[in-house]
């Protein structure tokens, strides 16, 4: 419960492991650890008194319509803070059964909610549950993506509004499994590095005030769970308008499918507008490109 306790235990472990440190350094460290140890109960008591909201027991977690065994853990880990409510305005489209466990399409439409700050999607029974987080900023609360599934699993999508409430939706997807532990298709080609980040994309105007942007980028999206292949995935996509204002931010995690294919709906004016996309992966590679939304009359 109390984070400080864990910290001091870690510190001790680290000190024991670091055999090459000088004696004096170690002595100083051990002294510090014991000081921390002595003050632990006092600090814990203090924290618990002033932050009753931190205690998980105080949050009412509704029953999960998808009956996930991981539901409470998912809420604690990925939907912290505010109230959690299942809300039919969070529409999650997914197939009942995964035809291909490496590319399971999911579309989230929460455009009926206003003041959305972030959209968080998890696959409860995946070895790595967190799929992605989207901060729509200057976009409609809509995102399409594809995910790798390790086994049949409930999907939960939490949409947090500015009042801190998590509006939940979800789906249950049957799957043959193995999607997260098999090597990416890219590793079957000897030149996959050459096409890393190669991008196809389309932008269309959907209404006088919004566009639809679909981007598909070459990337193996290695989970680190396939034998001998370390984690290597695109973990960040940012879309900005011409004024440098953020239109949307996406944090991607290991379960996002190889060659990430993402659809979002930026809010735009009626004139032609050029948005810039910047994607980064876990090795620090950056891939940037402009995409132009035509003016209202042009389409």
């Amino acid at each position, binding site marked *: 419960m109390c984070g400080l306790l864990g910290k001091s235990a870690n510190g001790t472990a680290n000190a024991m492991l670091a055999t090459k440190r000088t004696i004096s350094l170690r002595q100083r460290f051990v002294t510090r650890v014991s000081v921390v140890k002595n003050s632990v109960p006092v600090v814990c008591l203090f924290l618990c008194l002033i932050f009753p909201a931190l205690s998980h027991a105080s949050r009412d977690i509704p029953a999960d319509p998808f009956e996930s065994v991981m539901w409470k853990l998912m809420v604690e880990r990925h939907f912290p803070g505010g109230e959690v409510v299942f809300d039919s305005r969070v529409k999650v*489209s*997914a*197939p009942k059964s995964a*035809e*291909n466990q490496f*590319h399971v*399409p*999911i*579309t989230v439409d929460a455009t009926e909610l206003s003041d959305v700050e972030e959209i968080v999607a998890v696959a409860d029974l995946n070895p790595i549950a967190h799929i992605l987080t989207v901060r729509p900023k200057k976009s409609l609360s809509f995102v*399409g993506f*594809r995910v790798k599934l390790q086994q049949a699993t409930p999907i939960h999508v939490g949409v947090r509004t500015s009042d801190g409430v998590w509006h939940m939706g979800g789906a249950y997807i049957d799957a*043959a499994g193995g999607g997260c532990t098999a090597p990416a298709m890219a590793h079957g080609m000897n030149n996959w590095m050459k096409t890393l*980040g*190669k*991008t*196809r*994309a*389309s*932008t*269309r105007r959907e209404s006088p005030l919004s566009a*639809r*942007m*679909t*981007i*598909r980028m070459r990337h193996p999206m290695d989970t680190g769970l396939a034998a001998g292949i370390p984690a290597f995935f695109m973990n960040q996509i940012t879309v900005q308008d011409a004024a440098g204002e953020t239109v949307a931010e996406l944090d991607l995690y290991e379960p996002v499918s190889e*060659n990430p*294919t993402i*659809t979002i709906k930026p809010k735009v004016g009626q004139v032609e507008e050029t948005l810039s996309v*910047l994607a980064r992966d876990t090795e620090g590679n*950056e*891939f*940037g*490109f*402009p*995409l132009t939304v035509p003016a209202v009359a042009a389409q």
Partner: protein
Amino acid sequence: MKPDASPCCDSVDSTKHERRAFLKSSAQVLSAGCAYCAMAPLHAKLLDYKLAASEIAKGTWAVHGAQEYFNLDNGGNIVNVAFIEVPDGVVVIDTGPSKRYGEALLALIQRTIPNKPVLRVYNTHHHPDHCFGNQVFDSSLIAAPQGVIDNLRLEGDGFAENLYRLVGDWMRGTSLSVPTVALDTSYENVGGRRFSLFYLSGHTSADFVVRDDETGVLFTGDLAFMFRTPTTPHADIATWQASINALSGTDKDLIFPGHGPQDRKGDSLTQTSDYLAWLDGTLRHSVEQGLTMNEAMVLPIPDRFNSLSVLRTEYERSVVHLYPNLEDTLLPEIELTR
């Protein structure tokens, strides 16, 4: 199982206690076992494909499966299989989804055409509903083009695993038996009958079509579907359409499609071609519009396809199969500026 009690190490009390616990748990296991034994024969009796053959041309017998997707009730019997009496024996076209099916098929052949040996087994393509009954036949008789053999070697085990998941106990004991005869000739004489052999593709990368030159029955495998939505997990639609064109121009008296009733007028080819054209056009348009797969999956399907079974499910599966390649050709390439 508890090892022999060794008095030197255990105290008397704990040994007694453990033995009691062991006896108690064995009793539970035994009673559960008995309940299972009582149920098992009943269950085994239920798993019967109840195959029946109907004569669709002289000496040509059709075994029709359900017009459904794999499920626990149909045991994967969703496919058309045929056998033909030739002067010296029997020729079999496809073998069904499981060992249990293969056994039922072999029994049916022996009942229908007694005292004649199976001389040849053809596999039309590598999909599991068509060739997982292979193992009950002498493997030296099973023939297919090299492409079918290669595909089976590559994907057969994965198919088997997935079928165990989809249809369960029906698959018991099923393992893959790959054809040992690689065909590449334009015809073959089997037991006094000439069969024309056609090497096509489109439904998969290797689709094999056989014509009995005596009866004029054309066994198309899954290049033709009748009143059943075509499936696309390995499809290349343009090639498939070309193969359908070729088959339309081939001499024949009757088409025996991979799924659905036999067809005298060529409707199976027309239906399959019409659906594939609509599917291709719809998905191309969807990709160009930037629709997500999920949005494409709920698009309306024209009424004229209502006579095709498993329509919405197969359409949804096809979106997943075909979308990525269409995206890789139709979405505009973007030059990176960074």
